[in-house]
C-alpha cells in the first residue's frame, strides 16, 4: 500500500520535486567530476611513475652528485644509472651572413643528460632523431625554435661552442621529474655541455641521478635498494623520490588541489541544502492537506513518513546516477584538456566509476537535507483539516524549531568535507565561513525587509506589493537572497582573485623596474659588462649561504623541522647604498661604515624570529658569516625591483668566493643587442629578460585561476537554478494574487512590472551583497595572503550580474505571461 501510494503521489507531483532533483544532480556531478579527475590523474601518476620520475629512484640536489659506495654496490648488482642536469643558458643563432648584430638570442633551460638516459620511456621529436644528441648537436623545444626562428640544420651558439640543431624536441619522458622551469628546454649531451664551457659556479643548476633497478631483482631486493639509496641520500643531504610512492611532489600537489576543490564544493552543497529545503517547503504546502486527509483516514505517521522517504529515495537515486554520469562526462572533458597540457593520455573515468559511492552519498545528502521537512510532516495531524492548515506561511518559531535539523545537515556536511579533505580544519573553516556568511546575510536581509515593511506606505503600489510579499515570506525571501548573495559572492571573489593575481603580477611592475637580469657574473667580468650594459646597469655580489645560528643557538635542525623554506641556501649580498623600493622601518641603515651588521627584510625577520640586536650566523663554503641585525627593511617584492632578504655591511664577506648579479632597464632592441654581446663575450653568464618570467608565471596563474573558475561552476548553476526556480515558484504560488489583481483591473503590463521589479530588486540586492563579500574577501587576501598593494576590479563581475539579471527577468516574465493568460473567471470557477 505504501509503495503504491508513494508511486501515485510521485507520478502526480514529480514536477514539484524538480528543484531538489536538479540541485542534487549538480552537487553530485561536481562531486563525481572531482573524484573522476583526481582518480584519473592519480592513476596516471602511479602507473607512469617510473617514466615521470625518470627511474625507479631519483636522487636530486642543487650540486653535482657523486657516486657513493652504496650506489656503486647497486651498480654491481645490476642497477643502471643516468644523470640529468638542468641550468639556464642563453642560446644565440649563428647568422649565415656572419654579421653578429643580426643574431637572435633566447633563454633556455639547458638539459644535459648522460649515462643510460632515458631509463624509462623515450624522447619525442618532430623528425626522426633517436636518443640523445652527440657533442656537436643540440635539440630545441618548439618554443625555442620559434623564438629563434630556426629549424633543424641551423647552427646556434651556446657558451663558447657552436652546435647544429638536430631536431625539435616535442616530449620528454621525465618532464615532471625536475624543478619548475622558467624557460623551454634545449637538450645537450654531457660532452656538448663541456664544449660549451659554461661554468656554473653557483648552485643554480639542478642535478639528478636517476636509478633503474634490475628487472631480475626480487621485491625484497627492490625494497632493500630503496632503503640503501634513502640512507645514502640522507647522509649526504640529498633529496630522493621513489617510483613506488609515485611522484610525491605531484601527488602532494594533487592532494592539495583536491582538498581545495572539495572546500569550494561546500558552497555548492550548502546551496543545494537551501534549494532542497525551499523546494520541500513548497511541496509540504501543496500536499499538507493531502497528508492530513491520509491521517484522518487512519494512515499512521510512520506510513506517511515512509511514503515521502520513498519518494525522496527515488529522487536521490535518480539524481545520483544522473549526476555521476554528468560528472564523469565533465571529468572526461577536463582530462581531455589536461592531455593537451601534459601531452600524455589520461584515462577518463568509466561511466560506472563512483556510481555507488556518489549515488549513496547523494541519497544520504538528500535525506539529511530533508530532516526538517520530515519533522514538519510528522507534525501534520487530522485536526489540521478543520483549522484550514493549508497556509504555507511559516512563523519564526516554526523556523527555529527546524534549526536542530539544519544543524544536523550542516554537521553531516562537515563530516563529508572532513572525510574528503582529511582535514577537520579545512572542513570547519569552509563550512563555518559559508554558513556564517549565510546567517549574517539572512539576518541582514530579514531586518532590511522588516524595516522596509514598516515604512512601506511611503512607496508606490508596485514597490509596496514587492515589500509585502517579501515580508509575508520573510524567511524564504531572506534565504533566497542569502543563497544568491553567497553564490554570487563566491563567483565574484574568484573573478577578483584572478584579476588581482594577474593584475598585480603585471601591473605592479614599476616603470623604472629593470627588465633584464644577469646571473652568474664573475667579479673579473664586471668591468666588461659595465662597459656595454649602459647607464642603467647596477650589480651586486652574491654569496650563497645557509642560516645556521640565531643568538648563539644552532637552528638548522629546528628550521628543517619547523620551516624547511628557511633551511635552504639564501642569496646574501653586501652593499652600503640603498636601492629604489627599499625603506627602513626599524633601526638604522649600516651604510659604508657598518661593522658586522646586517639589514633584514621585514617578512623574513618575522618568519625567522629576528629583531634588532639579534645575532645571526650564515654558513658558506666553510666560512661563518656573523652579523648583528641593525635594521629591518620593507621592500617592494612585487614591483619588479630586485630585493634581498639579507643585506650585510661590506666588511662581512671578506675574501669569500662570490658571483655577481646585475640588472638594467633597456629598450627591446637594446636588450637584444645586450643578450647577443653577453652570449658572445661572457657565455657563462645568464641573461633573463623579465618579460619571459612574467609570461611564464602569468600562464601558470591563469591555469590555476581557470581551475578555480571551473570549480565554481556548480555553485553558479545552483545559484541560477535557485533564482529561476524561486521566481517561478513564487510567481506560481501567487497565481491567485495575479487573478485577484486582474479581477480588480490590473493590466498584464502592470503585473509584469511587479514581477520584473521584484526580480531586479532581489538580484541587485543579492548582487550588491555578493560584491561586498567578494571585495572584503579579496581585499583581505591581498593584504594578508598575497601581500599585493594594488587592487584590480574585474569587469566580468558586472557582465555576470547582467547575465543573472537577464536570466531572472526572462524566467519571471515567462511565468507571469503564462499565468496572466488565465482569465480571472477562475476566481468564480474554483468555488
Amino acid at each position: 500500500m505504501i509503495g503504491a501510494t508513494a508511486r501515485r503521489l510521485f507520478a502526480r507531483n514529480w514536477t514539484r520535486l524538480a528543484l531538489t532533483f536538479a540541485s542534487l544532480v549538480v552537487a553530485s556531478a561536481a562531486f563525481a567530476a572531482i573524484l573522476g579527475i583526481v582518480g584519473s590523474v592519480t592513476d596516471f601518476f602511479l602507473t607512469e611513475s617510473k617514466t615521470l620520475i625518470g627511474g625507479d629512484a631519483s636522487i636530486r640536489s642543487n650540486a653535482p652528485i657523486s657516486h657513493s659506495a652504496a650506489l656503486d654496490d647497486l651498480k654491481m648488482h645490476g642497477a643502471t644509472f643516468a644523470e640529468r642536469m638542468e641550468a639556464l643558458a642563453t642560446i644565440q643563432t649563428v647568422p649565415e651572413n656572419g654579421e653578429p648584430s643580426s643574431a637572435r638570442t633566447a633563454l633556455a633551460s639547458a638539459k644535459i643528460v648522460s649515462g643510460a638516459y632515458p631509463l624509462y620511456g623515450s624522447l619525442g621529436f618532430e623528425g626522426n632523431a633517436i636518443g640523445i644528441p652527440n657533442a656537436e648537436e643540440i635539440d630545441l623545444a618548439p618554443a625555442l625554435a620559434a623564438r629563434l626562428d630556426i629549424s633543424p640544420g641551423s647552427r646556434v651558439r651556446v657558451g663558447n661552442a657552436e652546435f647544429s640543431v638536430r631536431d625539435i624536441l616535442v616530449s620528454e619522458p621525465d618532464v615532471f621529474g625536475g624543478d619548475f622551469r622558467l624557460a623551454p628546454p634545449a637538450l645537450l649531451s654531457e660532452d656538448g655541455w663541456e664544449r660549451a664551457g659554461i661554468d656554473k659556479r653557483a648552485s643554480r643548476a639542478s642535478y639528478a641521478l636517476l636509478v633503474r633497478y634490475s628487472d631480475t631483482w626480487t621485491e625484497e631486493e627492490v625494497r632493500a635498494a630503496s632503503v640503501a639509496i634513502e640512507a645514502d641520500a640522507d647522509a649526504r643531504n640529498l633529496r630522493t623520490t621513489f617510483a613506488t610512492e609515485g611522484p610525491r611532489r605531484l601527488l602532494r600537489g594533487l592532494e592539495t588541489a583536491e582538498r581545495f576543490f572539495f572546500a569550494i564544493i561546500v558552497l555548492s552543497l550548502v546551496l543545494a541544502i537551501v534549494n532542497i529545503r525551499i523546494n520541500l517547503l513548497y511541496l509540504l504546502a501543496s500536499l499538507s492537506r493531502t497528508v492530513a486527509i491520509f491521517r484522518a483516514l487512519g494512515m499512521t505517521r510512520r506510513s506517511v513518513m515512509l511514503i515521502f522517504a520513498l519518494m525522496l529515495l527515488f529522487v536521490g537515486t535518480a539524481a545520483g546516477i544522473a549526476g555521476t554520469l554528468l560528472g564523469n562526462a565533465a571529468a572526461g572533458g577536463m582530462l581531455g584538456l589536461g592531455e593537451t597540457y601534459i601531452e600524455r593520455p589520461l584515462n577518463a573515468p568509466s561511466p560506472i566509476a563512483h556510481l555507488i559511492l556518489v549515488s549513496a552519498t547523494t541519497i544520504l545528502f538528500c535525506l539529511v537535507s530533508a530532516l526538517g521537512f520530515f519533522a514538519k510532516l510528522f507534525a501534520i495531524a487530522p485536526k489540521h483539516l478543520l483549522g484550514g492548515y493549508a497556509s504555507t506561511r511559516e512563523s519564526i518559531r516554526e523556523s527555529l524549531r527546524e534549526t536542530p535539523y539544519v544543524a544536523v545537515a550542516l554537521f553531516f556536511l562537515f563530516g563529508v568535507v572532513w572525510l574528503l579533505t582529511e582535514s577537520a580544519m579545512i572542513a570547519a573553516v569552509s563550512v563555518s565561513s559559508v554558513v556564517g556568511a549565510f546567517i549574517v546575510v539572512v539576518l541582514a536581509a530579514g531586518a532590511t525587509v522588516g524595516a522596509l515593511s514598516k515604512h512601506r506606505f511611503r512607496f508606490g503600489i508596485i514597490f509596496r506589493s514587492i515589500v509585502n510579499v517579501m515580508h509575508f515570506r520573510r524567511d524564504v525571501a531572506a534565504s533566497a537572497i542569502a543563497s544568491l548573495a553567497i553564490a554570487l559572492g563566491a563567483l565574484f571573489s574568484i573573478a577578483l582573485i584572478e584579476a588581482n593575481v594577474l593584475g598585480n603580477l603585471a601591473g605592479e611592475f614599476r616603470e623604472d623596474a629593470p627588465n633584464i637580469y644577469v646571473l652568474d657574473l664573475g667579479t673579473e667580468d664586471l668591468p666588461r659588462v659595465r662597459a656595454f650594459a649602459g647607464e642603467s646597469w647596477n650589480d651586486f655580489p652574491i654569496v650563497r649561504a645557509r642560516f645556521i645560528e640565531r643568538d648563539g643557538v644552532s637552528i638548522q635542525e629546528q628550521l628543517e623541522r619547523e620551516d624547511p623554506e628557511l633551511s635552504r641556501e639564501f642569496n646574501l649580498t653586501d652593499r652600503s647604498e640603498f636601492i629604489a623600493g627599499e625603506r627602513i622601518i626599524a633601526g638604522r641603515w649600516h651604510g659604508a661604515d657598518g661593522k658586522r651588521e646586517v639589514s633584514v627584510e621585514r617578512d623574513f625577520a618575522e618568519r625567522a624570529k629576528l629583531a634588532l640586536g639579534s645575532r645571526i650566523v650564515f654558513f658558506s663554503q666553510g666560512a661563518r658569516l656573523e652579523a648583528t641585525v641593525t635594521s629591518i627593511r620593507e621592500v617592494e617584492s612585487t614591483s619588479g625591483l630586485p630585493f634581498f632578504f639579507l643585506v650585510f655591511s661590506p666588511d662581512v664577506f671578506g675574501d669569500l668566493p662570490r658571483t655577481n648579479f646585475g640588472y638594467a632597464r633597456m629598450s627591446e632592441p637594446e636588450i637584444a643587442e645586450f643578450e647577443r654581446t653577453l652570449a658572445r663575450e661572457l657565455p657563462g653568464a645568464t641573461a633573463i629578460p623579465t618579460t619571459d618570467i612574467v609570461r611564464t608565471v602569468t600562464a601558470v596563474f591563469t591555469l590555476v585561476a581557470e581551475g578555480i573558475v571551473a570549480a565554481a561552476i556548480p555553485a553558479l548553476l545552483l545559484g541560477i537554478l535557485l533564482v529561476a526556480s524561486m521566481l517561478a515558484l513564487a510567481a506560481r504560488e501567487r497565481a491567485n494574487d495575479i487573478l485577484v489583481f486582474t479581477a480588480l483591473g490590473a493590466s498584464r503590463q502592470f503585473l509584469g512590472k511587479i514581477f520584473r521589479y521584484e526580480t531586479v530588486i532581489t538580484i541587485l540586492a543579492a548582487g550588491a551583497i555578493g560584491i561586498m563579500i567578494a571585495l572584503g574577501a579579496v581585499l583581505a587576501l591581498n593584504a594578508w595572503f598575497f601581500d599585493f598593494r594594488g587592487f584590480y576590479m574585474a569587469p566580468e563581475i558586472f557582465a555576470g550580474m547582467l547575465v543573472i539579471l537577464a536570466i531572472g527577468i526572462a524566467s519571471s516574465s515567462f511565468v507571469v505571461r503564462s499565468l496572466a493568460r488565465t482569465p480571472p473567471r477562475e476566481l468564480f470557477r474554483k468555488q
Partner: protein
Amino acid sequence: MITLTDVQKSYRQGETLVEVLRGVTTTIDSGERVAIVGASGSGKSTLLAIIAGMETADAGEVLIGGRDLRSASEADLARFRNTEIAVVFQSFELVPSFSALENVMLPLDIRSEESETRARAALERVGLTHRLTHLPGELSGGEAQRVAIARAIAQGTPIIVADEPTGNLDAKTGADVIDLLFSTIAEDKKTLILVTHDERLARRSDRILELADGKLRAAL
C-alpha cells in the same frame, strides 16, 4: 444600465461541447438589485463573469453603460473592471500578503488614485477600523468578507456583483454581511447583481432571475 442580448457561451470539456449559456437576454436598470438563482452548474458564475468583464461571450451583445464588452480590448476590459464594476467573491479573494487596509486600497492604487483615506473610510463603514493592519490570514471569515465589501465600496464603481457572498460563512455572520451589503448598496444607489442559492436572500432583491437550461427567466 446593463443589457444582455442573446448571449451565448460554451466550453469544450474533452471532446464534448458544453453549452452553458444558450441565448441569455435581459436588462438590468441602474440602481436595481437583481438576484440570479439556479441549480449548480447552470451557468450562474459564467454569466456573472461575462457581466464583470472577466469572460467573453461567444455570441450576443453585452452592453454595460452603453459599452459593448465583446468588442473591448484587453486594456479596455482591465479599465472596465477597475472603474465600472466591483466583485465580491465567495472566497473573499484578498491578497494574503497585504493588510486589510492595503487590500481595500488596491483597486485605487492600480488606477493611481489617492487610496488610503478612502480605504480607511470604507473600512470604517464596515466596522473594521480595529483590523486595518491585520493580514487576511489573521481575520475571521466574516471579517474577511467585510474587507471584501469595503474594497468594493472603496472601488467606487456603479455596479457591484456578488457571487455567493455568504457561501463560506455561518448563518449569523452571513446575515450580518448581507445586511451590510444591502445597506451600502442602498446608501450609494449602486446596481447589485447577486448570485445565490439562498432563497431568503434572493427575496431581498428587487427582481429574481432564474438560470435554467442556459436561459434566463424571471423566477416566480
